[in-house]
């Protein structure tokens, strides 16, 4: 086998690698990490409860309403809850500088009545980022 043959093999291999990486990007980024988690996954990585979704302003990122909950960003797509293992920079910035607001509807047994906390609902409490391939904003 000559060095030229070996070189061609390298070329084909890297082309193959580049193709795989491109394919991965095009098909929605979840190749290889979308496996079903075991039954006890919920206990460790619980997604936001209904009462949380109903009272908390989302941040729109990559076309999805995304919720900061229990130390992570969660969004629902196609009937599945998903989260980011690494916090995207825009979401980090939003969380640090303008945390998502929550709506308190009732004084719970004598606490201060109603109102918001944790930020402002509206343009500054939630927010819109990204746009991505999943829907986007106008």
């Amino acid at each position: 086998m000559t060095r030229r043959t070996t070189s061609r093999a390298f070329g084909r291999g890297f082309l193959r690698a580049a193709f795989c990486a491109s394919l991965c990007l095009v098909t929605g980024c979840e190749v290889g990490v979308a496996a079903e988690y075991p039954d006890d996954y919920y206990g460790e990585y619980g997604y936001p409860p209904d009462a949380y979704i109903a009272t908390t302003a989302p941040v729109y990122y990559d076309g999805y309403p995304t919720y900061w909950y229990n130390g992570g960003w969660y969004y629902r797509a196609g009937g599945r809850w998903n989260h980011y293992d690494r916090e995207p920079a825009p979401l980090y910035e939003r969380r640090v500088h303008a945390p998502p607001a929550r709506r308190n509807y009732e004084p719970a047994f004598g606490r201060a009545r109603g109102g918001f906390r944790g930020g402002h609902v509206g343009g500054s409490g939630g927010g819109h980022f990204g746009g991505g391939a999943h829907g986007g904003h106008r």
Partner: protein
Amino acid sequence: MSVILYALSHGTAFRIGMSMTSTWTACKRTIGLAAFVLTSVGTTLACGAHSTTQRVASSPASAEDSGDDVAMGLMEHHRYHHHGGLTLFVLMSLDTISVSPAEQTAVSGIRNDLVASMAPARLAEQALMTQLADGVAAGSLDGQKVERAVTEVTNAARVIHEASGDVLDRLHAALSPSERTALVDKVDAHWRVWQRANADETGSAPDEGGHLGALAAELHLTEDQLDRVRSALRDGMKAVPPLDPKEVDAELRGFGDAFRGATFDVRALTTASDADAHMVGWAVAHLARFVEAASGVLTTEQRAAFAERLRGHAAHDPSTETSP
């Protein structure tokens, strides 16, 4: 990371002096590994490291799961405020939908129109709550008056969908696709929380999120009092037609599917008025029966505290406290 380390350790296959055959074998192996590593790294870098949790029909509905007073406040709200039916869920969802600044004026106007469409039902519910509070404080409820008040709330709820006219159409037009998705998610979440807050508590143990569970915690009801409330509630609810959650499920599914779409026509939701009337009618009747059942077994001090709580809800209107 382990894959990268594996690749590096096998990179020694390129050592000088290795035969061409073994070099070719090593190259093939390394090329394959490189493809895998590039694929993995590409995925990770491009996606901000997405992960997918298990497929779910809904989120856990309990306030305890949220573990905070905001969630508990929502449960409390859904125990006592029913007048707007499913439209009230939409209104409440607007509170935290977080629209873009450009949309705020339009959505604020839509929100005001929704509040106006529910005003008659809100007043009817306020009257019912005041009657219940007065009855609890006095230790005696006027059954006929309470029944009339329940009917008035139900009738007012039945016409909300029609009264709101094209408000939902305008809302659909004002929101972006992702905001519509957020709104539908929130409406669904409100419905599931509502079910938990208005759970059937005639069984052996009160649901912690339901009326009896909450009252037991607040007023420190004894086991004997709990048993007597449950027994009286069982008798009282015999005359109330049961609520079929599947009817509301179907209504919300229809709304959600339509509202997430590119076009939306509120006139296609032909069963919304019936769903509102059934849900609100059952809820206020259940509330009245519960208050009646509890009132008969509470001490004077407990009745005073409960009456105060009912008055607080009668006077409290969260829809006036916010703008989107």
